[in-house]
C-alpha cells in the first residue's frame, strides 16, 4: 500500500492485488459476523433515556453495514479503483478515505467480539477451532490493513519534501 497522490480532498493509493483481495475478504466478514450494539453508558441505569440508548446502538450498527456496502462498491468501481499492472490505483476523497478506515477497523472489532472479546495482551487464549482460527487470522489481517491505510492517510508522497 503506497500513497501516490495527496491533494486537498483527494488521494490516490496504490494497492497490491493481494491487498485489494484482502480488503474485500475483510469487508465480506460483516455478513458473517454481526456487530454487538454498543452500550451508551456504564453509569447508573435510568439516568439516560432508554429509548435513546437503544436507537443510538442500532444506528451505529446499521451505519457500519451501510458503510461496508459503499466501500465494497468503491473497490469494485473500475473508474475509481483502476486495475493496473500488479495492482490497483484507488482514488478516494476525504469521506471515502475515512470510511474505509472505519470499516476495516470495524471488521477487526467484529472478529474480536465474535471470539468472545479476549484480552490477548494479557495472555488470554481462545479455543483452537477452525472458526476461531479464521477469526484470529482475519482480525490480524484487518489490523495490518488499518495500519497501512493510516500510514497512507497521514503520510506524504515524498514529492513535497525538500
Amino acid at each position, binding site marked *: 500500500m503506497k500513497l501516490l497522490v495527496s491533494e486537498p480532498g483527494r488521494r490516490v493509493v496504490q494497492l497490491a492485488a493481494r491487498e485489494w483481495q484482502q480488503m474485500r475478504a475483510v469487508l465480506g466478514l460483516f455478513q458473517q459476523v454481526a456487530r454487538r450494539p454498543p452500550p451508551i453508558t*456504564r453509569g447508573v441505569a435510568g439516568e439516560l433515556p432508554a429509548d435513546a440508548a437503544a436507537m443510538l446502538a442500532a444506528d451505529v450498527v446499521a451505519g457500519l453495514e451501510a458503510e461496508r456496502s459503499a466501500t465494497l462498491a468503491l473497490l469494485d468501481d473500475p473508474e475509481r479503483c483502476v486495475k493496473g499492472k500488479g495492482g490497483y490505483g484507488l482514488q478516494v476523497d476525504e469521506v471515502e478515505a475515512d470510511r474505509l478506515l472505519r470499516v476495516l477497523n470495524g471488521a477487526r472489532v467484529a472478529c*474480536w467480539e465474535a471470539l468472545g472479546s479476549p*484480552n490477548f495482551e494479557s495472555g488470554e487464549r481462545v479455543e483452537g477451532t477452525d472458526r476461531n482460527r479464521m477469526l484470529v487470522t482475519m482480525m490480524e489481517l484487518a489490523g495490518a490493513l488499518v*495500519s497501512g491505510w*493510516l500510514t497512507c492517510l497521514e503520510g506524504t508522497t515524498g514529492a513535497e519534501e525538500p
Partner: protein
Amino acid sequence: MPVTLPTPTATPREASREALESGYLVVCWNDPVNLMPYVTHVFQQVFGWDRKRAEKHMMEVHEKGKSVLVRESFEKAEAHVHQLQSYSLQATLEKDAG
C-alpha cells in the same frame, strides 16, 4: 443611599436545566483491540485536536483504563459518543457527578 442587591441564585428549575446542558462526560474506555495510532487518529478527527493532545488522551485510556474526553450538554455528548462508536471505540456518556 446605596442599595444592596441580593446575590443571584439559581432556582431549582434553572439549576436542573444547567446540569442538563453541560453535565455529561464523554468517556473513552480501554480495550485490547483498537490500535493506539488508530485511537489517536480518531480523537483528532472527531474533536479536531492536534496530535499531541490526542496522544495524551490515548495514553490515558491505555494506561489508566479510561479518559474523560469532553464535558458537554446531553445532546452534544450524545453526538460525540455516536461518532466515536461509529469508529468502534468504546465510548460512553456519563452523568457528571462533580
